[in-house]
């Protein structure tokens, strides 16, 4: 992930109105997480587990922040109970930026099953999602995803494939 990509995504978050990001350290994201952490326009909370990030972002939203959760799809799958019973049941928005292990452009066999179940689970939960495949599209997608989660008060997900993150 180069400086252009980290700048594009960070600026897109800020321009969309996001001011709070929780994330779990991850190889594909590390330069982006560092960039977000250093940005004075964003409050950044490093997590120890993704599901707690759902709770932290919900509390931040209640208090007037506009949060995004930056995690991999394994962490999304770990967070489904929290997303169902805090966000969907309680009308709490959340912009989910999900790194797509096992999606198109994957090269490690061990991510194949995680990749295979990610979209069926998103659909089962009724979470609207889009694929973010190209860096040139990501700014508009982040803007639209954040707008949609805000006004529908339901989580909305962007699946960032590994090509987009490189």
């Amino acid at each position, binding site marked *: 992930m180069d400086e252009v990509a980290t700048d594009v995504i960070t600026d897109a978050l800020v*321009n*969309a*109105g996001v001011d*709070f990001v929780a994330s779990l350290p991850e190889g594909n994201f590390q330069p982006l997480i560092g960039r977000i952490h250093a940005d004075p326009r964003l*409050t950044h*909370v*490093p*997590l*120890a*587990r993704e*599901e*707690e*990030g*759902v*709770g*932290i*972002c*919900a*509390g*931040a*939203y*209640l*208090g*007037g*922040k*506009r*949060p995004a959760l930056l995690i991999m799809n394994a962490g999304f799958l770990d967070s489904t*109970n*929290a997303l169902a*019973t*805090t966000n969907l*049941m*309680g*009308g*709490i*928005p959340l912009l989910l930026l999900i790194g797509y292990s096992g999606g198109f452009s994957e090269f490690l066999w061990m991510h194949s099953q995680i990749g295979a179940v990610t979209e069926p689970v998103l659909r089962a939960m009724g979470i609207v999602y889009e694929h973010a495949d190209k860096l040139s599209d990501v*700014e*508009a997608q982040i*803007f639209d995803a*954040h*707008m949609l989660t*805000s*006004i529908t*008060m339901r989580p909305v997900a962007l699946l960032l494939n590994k090509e987009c993150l490189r």
Partner: protein
Amino acid sequence: MKRYDCLKLLAPLVGKDDLVVTNLGGVRVEWNALRPSDANYNVFTLGLCSSVGLGLALALPHRRVIVLDSDGSLLLNLPSLTTIADQSPGNLVHIVFDNKAYESAAGGPTHTANRADLARIGQGAGIKNAVRVDFLEDFQSAVEHALAAKEVFLVVARVEIGTAAVPPDPYDAMEVKYRFMRHLEKVEGRPLVTLRPPVARRAAPDSATPAVPSSPDPIP
């Protein structure tokens, strides 16, 4: 020591605008009966209330946030302790009522019934002010101290199993959200519920057309 007796001591110490986040178990109905208020928020994901309290405390650093949690709930979300310690918001007081049991789930024992000690886990997580109390007078002094301090606190109160005979709580998660956020809008003096997006239209790529901010909704 009974949880309800602890809450009766806590209620007069909690200010009108202090925000109280509870988990979904017995502490929710007992607290809502003792301190009915739109400044209470109930979390309906077991284990998540400590994290919601942390997010709220970070979003509103000028307001006191009190989390009412339990042993079974916190054991589901132990990473929240290291994250709370990492952030250490001085406006967060985390109170855990430890009855050594999954009381809402037929009363089976939690690991605190055997070897686990949540206050020491809290200390190990990096929360310097993590204390365990076994008696009402110790609970009161620990909570008074925690509420007066400008540092994050974890108070683990060892209590008996049992929920007081209070009326059932009539609010679902959606109503709890609206009551809580509308209350916060009044005391904060700004709109919080996002019926409109924060930015109405994004800037054009040529940056000749700037982003258009939303006109905020009025506070009801």
